[in-house]
Every structure is written in structure tokens, then in C-alpha cells.
């Protein structure tokens, strides 16, 4: 699992060059490159303290390095880690760190610093949303020397590299000096940028970290420092404002609303990149509440759903229809499962509903319940218009087979709250993630009243999930994940709807950028031409 020898050699060479004082080469490379990359982000900031924040988005990864990163083929590659080894029993991971990385306060990024960080993530009192797996997983950390240590785990954990690739590493010295209260606004990391200014809920401005030379070579042809002088993230939610600012050049990088895709593509100043998000939209049933306890009834809804038309009406055909719990953009998706999953078959849906006793008694085109009483199917959804449109499409499709859907619009926090009560019926939601282990959170018996919003779990499914999450061998894990997906498709606690598009617009002046298959934007080698 070593990095390619060439990369190591290149790094060593570069380090030698730098130390040898051949800085001229470096300056030459950076000459004429720079500028400020301005990015729009619809979410506003949270604390930059990764141990309290639930927001682990790219502003964080501009400041903090991580142990691992994900190559373009989605395999895990070293970032702070130079080489590593997993033990036979898959319960220990030994990591050798690169020995030239430093935090921006000058302290070295060494084994002691990593131990401090990992233990802090594993502390149940930490409230970070990433790294939570470490709380139950991590047994202890054994430091061998300045730059090598071993993580000893209680059990094998398949998403371990995924978890570690998401953990921001902070400077322990700075954290202890500044204190947890103020670290969130005065973060000290060792990533490509340094936070210069934060205007809460408006923008964050970062400056190049001049000492940063440890960008993973699998992702970047130049190890750093980054070419850009500054990075500014604007927290603007209005998509039309963002688009206008992209057109005028005030913003260099932003998402393009689906309806404006054609215009953006026709604009010579903007390069448009079209991909799919690693996110899905689905309707969940509260399987703990009658009549949604009946899998046949849930399946009838799946047969009544025309995904092809759904993506046409809700996303102008830019989304992908989805028939299983994992989208193609998350590792573990198995295209063969689409064959066994319920797809649009209105006759079958109607026959199933008839058989279950949901028949149109009064002839108004809408079915009554088995007792012959009026039937309404409440679907809780959030209020942004994109969501409402999806709910309206479902309402129309399901009405066509006689299902009387009632759209209950809720403010988002109220919607999330409702699904934890267990009194809800159907709900329209999304999830976005980069690892199949996400399914454990949705079908964990312990998380009913939490993330298990369908209130669905069986012993069999739990066993399958545990098997998938503890299998480190990729091929075997893929099989185990397929088994999980198959079971979930069969049980139908959700109706899978679509994978939304990721439309990215980039100013033509920005050079040398790239978009990762996981839709993250690789900008550390990007630059504007300067005189």
C-alpha cells in the first residue's frame, strides 16, 4: 500500500532542492501565477473547530490536512501519511508520517500530534460529526517514534480509511493555547491555506500557506505551496445571484442551477462541468406505523413511481433515475440490482393496492382504505421549491394510480424533528455521503428516533450491515454491500427516486483545475495568470 516510489522520490528530491537553497526554481514555477479564487457556498459557516463542528466542508480542508486523501480512482492515498500497513486481523493500522510537514504555528505534524488529534476525536465528549466512529472503535494509540504510530482498534472497520480521510488535523499546541472557545475563529492547521478573515455568515478569506509542500502527488502535480494567493468563500444562498456573480467574474466557481445550464454552457467566459452528486433523493415510510408496516403496500408505491418522468419533471432530465439505496456515485453501487428492484409498473401497483383492499369505493378516482373510509397519505417535505416540485410530481404520479397523497410542507428543522417522533407517515428526504457505511446509520435499531427515520431494522439486516462494515477486503466488501442493498430493496422501506446533478461553473480565466469524481474541486494547482 505504499505510495508510488516515484512520488516519494519526487518529494525527497523536492525537499532536498528546497533545503539546498534552490528556491529559484520554486519561484520560477510560481511566477505569473496567483490571484484570488472566489467561491460561492450556499451553506453558511460554522465553527472552524473540527471537534465541535458538524460542518466539514472544503473551507475546513483548506486549513487542515488529513492523514489520507482519495485518488481519482477513489482509492485511498497518503496525505500526511507516507506509508501504512494494516495488520492481519485488520484491527491495527500502522502509519508512517511524512517528516517535513508543519502546522502554521511552526510545530511539527508528528506522531504525538496525530495521537492527540485521534484521541480527541475518539473522546465521547467531542461533538464532531466526523470521526465519531473512533469513539467506539479506537482502543489505543501506540507511538513508535517521532513519525510513526499504530492505531489499535476494537474491531475491524471497513470505512476506516474513509473516516481517517475526513479527519482534520489541528495543531495541539495552538488548540491548547487558544482554548476551545476561540479556536473556532482562530484555527491553526497545516493545510494549503491560512484563515485570514472571517465575517460570520457572510464570507471567509484565506491566504496561501507559504510552507505547504505536502499535497498528495496522486492528486496534484505540484506539491505546493499553492499558486493561488487567496481563497475567498462567500456564503450566498441565492442561486441566481451566484450565477450573476459568476457571469460578471466576481465569483470564479459556483454551482449552476439546472434551468440555467444551457445559458452557462453558451457563455464563453464559463466552463461548465456536468456530473452526478454522491447524493440521493428518496421517500421513506415510517415502517413502525400502520399501514406502512406492510412491505407489499410500500412496494406498490415503488411500482407507482415513474423515475424517468420524475427526473424529467423535477430536474429537466439532468438527474439520474434511481432504484436502489446507493447511487452510482457511491462505491458499492451495483448496477445489476436495478433488475430486481421495483420499477415503474402502474398496472402492477394498482393490482397490489386492489389486493390490499385499497379500492376506489366512491368513484372519485382516489382509493379508500380497506374499511372503505377516506384515505389520505401524508408526505412530509421541506419547503425549498426544488423539494416542493418533487413532492408535486410524486403527488401527480401516485394520484394516477389512485393514491391520495397529501403534501405536508414543513420547515426543515421541523421535518427532521417529526421523523424522530415515530408519528410520521411518509417523508421526502435526501442523503449525501461517500461511503456505503451510511446505510448503517439509516437502518440501525439503535438509531430509531435518530437517523433511522424509516424506523426500520431487522436482525438479518443488522447482521448484513455489520458484515459489510467489518470487511476490509474490497471485493468481499462489495459483495457484502450488495447483500445489504438487495435486502433493503426487497424490504422497500424507501422509494429511491433520483441522483441529482452536480453542475459546476468555473471562470475560463482559472487555469489548471480539476473536478474529483466525488465532485470536490481540486484547486490547489489552479491559478489565475498574473503579470
Amino acid at each position, binding site marked *: 500500500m505504499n505510495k508510488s516510489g516515484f512520488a516519494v522520490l519526487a518529494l525527497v528530491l523536492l525537499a532536498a532542492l528546497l533545503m539546498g537553497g534552490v528556491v529559484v526554481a520554486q519561484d520560477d514555477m510560481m511566477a505569473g501565477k496567483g490571484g484570488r479564487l472566489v467561491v460561492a457556498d450556499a451553506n453558511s459557516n460554522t*465553527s472552524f473547530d473540527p471537534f465541535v463542528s458538524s460542518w466539514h466542508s472544503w473551507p475546513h480542508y483548506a486549513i487542515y490536512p488529513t492523514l489520507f486523501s482519495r485518488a481519482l480512482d477513489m482509492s485511498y492515498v497518503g496525505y500526511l501519511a507516507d506509508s501504512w500497513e494494516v495488520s492481519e486481523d485488520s484491527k491495527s493500522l500502522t502509519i508512517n508520517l511524512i517528516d517535513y510537514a508543519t502546522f502554521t504555528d511552526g510545530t511539527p505534524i508528528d506522531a504525538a500530534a496525530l495521537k492527540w488529534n485521534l484521541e480527541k476525536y475518539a473522546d465521547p465528549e467531542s461533538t464532531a460529526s466526523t470521526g*465519531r466512529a473512533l469513539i467506539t472503535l479506537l482502543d489505543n494509540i501506540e507511538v513508535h517514534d517521532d513519525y510513526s504510530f499504530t492505531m489499535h482498534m476494537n474491531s475491524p472497520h471497513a470505512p476506516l480509511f474513509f473516516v481517517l480521510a475526513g479527519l482534520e488535523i489541528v495543531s495541539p499546541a495552538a488548540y491548547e493555547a487558544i482554548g476551545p472557545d476561540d479556536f473556532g475563529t482562530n484555527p491553526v492547521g497545516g493545510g494549503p491555506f491560512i484563515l485570514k478573515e472571517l465575517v460570520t455568515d457572510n464570507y471567509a478569506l484565506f491566504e496561501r500557506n507559504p510552507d505547504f509542500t505536502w499535497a498528495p502527488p496522486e492528486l496534484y502535480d505540484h506539491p505546493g505551496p499553492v499558486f493561488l494567493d487567496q481563497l475567498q468563500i462567500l456564503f450566498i444562498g441565492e442561486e441566481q*445571484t451566484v450565477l*450573476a456573480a459568476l457571469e460578471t467574474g466576481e465569483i470564479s466557481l459556483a454551482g449552476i442551477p439546472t434551468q440555467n445550464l444551457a445559458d452557462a454552457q453558451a457563455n464563453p467566459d464559463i466552463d461548465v462541468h456536468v456530473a452526478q452528486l454522491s447524493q440521493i433523493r428518496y421517500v421513506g415510510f415510517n415502517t413502525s406505523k400502520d399501514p406502512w408496516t406492510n412491505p407489499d403496500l410500500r412496494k406498490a408505491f415503488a411500482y407507482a413511481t415513474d423515475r424517468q418522468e420524475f427526473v424529467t419533471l423535477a430536474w429537466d432530465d439532468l438527474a439520474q433515475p434511481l432504484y436502489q439505496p446507493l447511487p452510482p456515485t457511491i462505491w458499492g453501487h451495483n448496477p445489476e440490482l436495478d433488475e430486481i428492484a421495483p420499477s415503474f409498473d402502474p398496472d402492477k401497483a394498482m393490482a397490489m393496492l386492489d389486493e390490499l383492499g385499497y379500492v376506489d369505493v366512491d368513484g372519485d378516482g382516489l382509493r379508500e382504505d380497506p374499511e372503505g373510509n377516506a384515505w389520505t397519505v401524508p408526505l412530509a417535505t421541506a419547503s425549498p421549491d426544488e423539494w416542493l416540485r418533487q413532492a408535486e410530481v410524486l403527488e401527480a404520479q401516485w394520484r394516477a394510480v389512485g393514491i391520495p397523497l397529501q403534501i405536508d410542507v414543513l420547515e*426543515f*428543522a421541523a421535518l427532521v424533528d417529526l421523523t424522530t417522533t415515530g408519528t410520521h407517515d411518509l417523508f421526502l428526504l435526501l442523503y449525501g455521503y461517500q461511503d456505503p457505511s451510511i446505510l448503517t446509520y439509516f437502518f440501525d435499531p439503535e438509531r430509531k*428516533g435518530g*437517523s433511522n427515520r424509516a424506523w426500520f431494522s431487522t436482525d438479518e439486516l443488522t447482521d448484513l450491515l455489520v458484515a459489510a462494515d467489518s470487511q476490509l477486503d474490497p471485493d468481499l466488501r462489495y459483495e457484502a454491500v450488495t447483500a445489504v442493498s438487495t435486502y433493503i430493496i426487497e424490504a422497500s422501506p424507501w422509494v429511491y427516486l433520483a441522483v441529482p446533478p452536480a453542475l459546476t461553473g468555473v471562470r475560463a480565466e482559472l487555469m489548471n483545475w480539476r473536478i474529483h469524481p466525488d465532485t470536490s474541486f481540486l484547486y490547489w494547482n489552479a491559478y489565475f495568470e498574473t503579470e
Partner: protein
Amino acid sequence: MVGGFMSKYILRRILIAFPLILAVTTVVFVMLRVALPGDPAKLMAGDRASPEQVEIIRRKLGLDRPVIEQYFIFLRNFAQGDLGRSVKFREPVLGVIAKAFPFTAKITLLSVTVGTTIGLLIGIMTAVYQRTWIDNVGIVVTVFFFSIPTFWLGLMLILIFAVGLRVLPVQGASSWRHFIMPVATLAVGQSALIARLTRSSMIEVLSTDYVRTARSKGLAPRRVLASHALQNTLIPVITVVGLSVGGLLGGAVITESIFGLPGVGRLAIDAISNRDYPMIQGTVILVAASFVFVNLLVDIIYAFVDPRIRYE
């Protein structure tokens, strides 16, 4: 006129302001914790948190204590000028609001001044030239601009002046040029309302016998306008201006989000969607204080404009 009893009145109003603000805050405080669906701990913990982790966060935020105890803690800190830390931003609420408020105050002042001036001018014009083409155009234009939704107007301005003509920036607040479109957006609706109000009141006053008499006696029209008509039309206008100042000091949510502005309106809305209790309380106190203060100011201005008005 602003004699002893007036200053006593002002003093009484200032004294009542504190319990008033406290009352609003208390209602919001209890409502958030008892009645409102949504839980800051759950939202902060994220989608994948286990119930125990949510519980830990709840404890850290002090939300596991009885509401009454939370309230006394809040009161004690409030009395010391501490509004707590934002759940979402992990920054002191007071600091976050203090950073955003100067901007909000500036944009309020600018847009109200511009809106009122234009509104008064249009109102006087349309009243003086009542039932002429000027008046007819006036009613169509003012109603149109009053009815046009803020987000349309904002977006139209952006498309014309920023994207089309490239003369103004789309978003941000770093120079005076950034203020032009937001101020225009806010001023348009206000000027329309004030124009209609001014026109209506002016006509009423202009048609009363005493103004007619003054006119027939040969007083210059402009003097009649200034000395009699305008003064009496001002009361409703001042009321409406006061209400919009009070409202705008609490933030102009739509305008702020369209132009990406660092005002308190977006803070307030985000605080509610995140159930960021301390932040919500902070913005509620701000809004309450703005209204109480501005409405007091309005009552004082009434007495200046119309010296017969007295408060006991």
C-alpha cells in the same frame, strides 16, 4: 412644548422599554424550548449522531436542565451583558450581531432617507396635480413598484446593472457602489407607500376650506403647501417611516440574501432555521429594542410636528 411633563413621559417610556424587551425575550425563550419543533442539539450533531451523542451536546449546551433553571441562567448572564455563544458559529452572540449591525443601520438609514424623499416628492406632485395625467401615471407607477416582489426587483437590478451594463457589482458590501442596488431595492417599496399616503393626506388637507380660503385670499400656492398642507400630512408618513426603520433595523432578509450582504436579517433567519437559541434571543432583543426605541422617537417627533399633541 417639550417641557417637564414631556421629559417625564420620555423617561417613563424608556423605563417601560426594559420590561417590554424582557417580555418578548421571555416568550421567545419559553416557546423555543417548550413549544417549537426542532432541536439545536440534533441539528448540530448532524444526521449520523447516536442518541447518546445528541444527549452530550444537549448537556454541553445546557439544554438538559429544567427550562426555569435555563431561564435564570439566561437572566443572570443577560444582566451581565452576556448573551451566550451561538450554537452554530461558536462565537459570542453579541460579537456576531455587533459586527453585522453597523451595516444594517447604514443601509436602513440610506434606504429610508432615499425612499421617504422620493415618496414625499411623488406624493406632493400627484396631490397637487390631482386627476391630471401626472396623478394617473403616479398611481400606476407607485402601485406597480409597491407590488413588485423584492426578489424580482433585486434580481432585475442585478441583471440590468451588473450583468448587462457591468456598471455595478452583484454582491458584497465593500464599497459605496455595492450599496446602490440594495438601497434602491429597499427604497422603492417604501417610496411607493409614502407617495400614496402623502397624496391621500395632502388631498384631504388641500380640499379643506381653510386651505381653499388661504388660496382664494391670494397666498402663494407654495406657501399654502408648506405652512398648512404638508405639516398635517406628515403624521401618517412619520408613522410609516418609523415602522419601516424599526423593521429594517432588525434586518432586511430578502435584500440581504439577494445581494450577499452582511446584515442582521440573515443572521436572524439562519438562527431560527438552525434553532440556534442564543442567536435567536440576541436577534429578538435587537428587533424589540429597535421597535421600542424607534416608536418612542416617532411619538416625540409627533409632538414636534404637531405641537398640540400631548401625552399624559
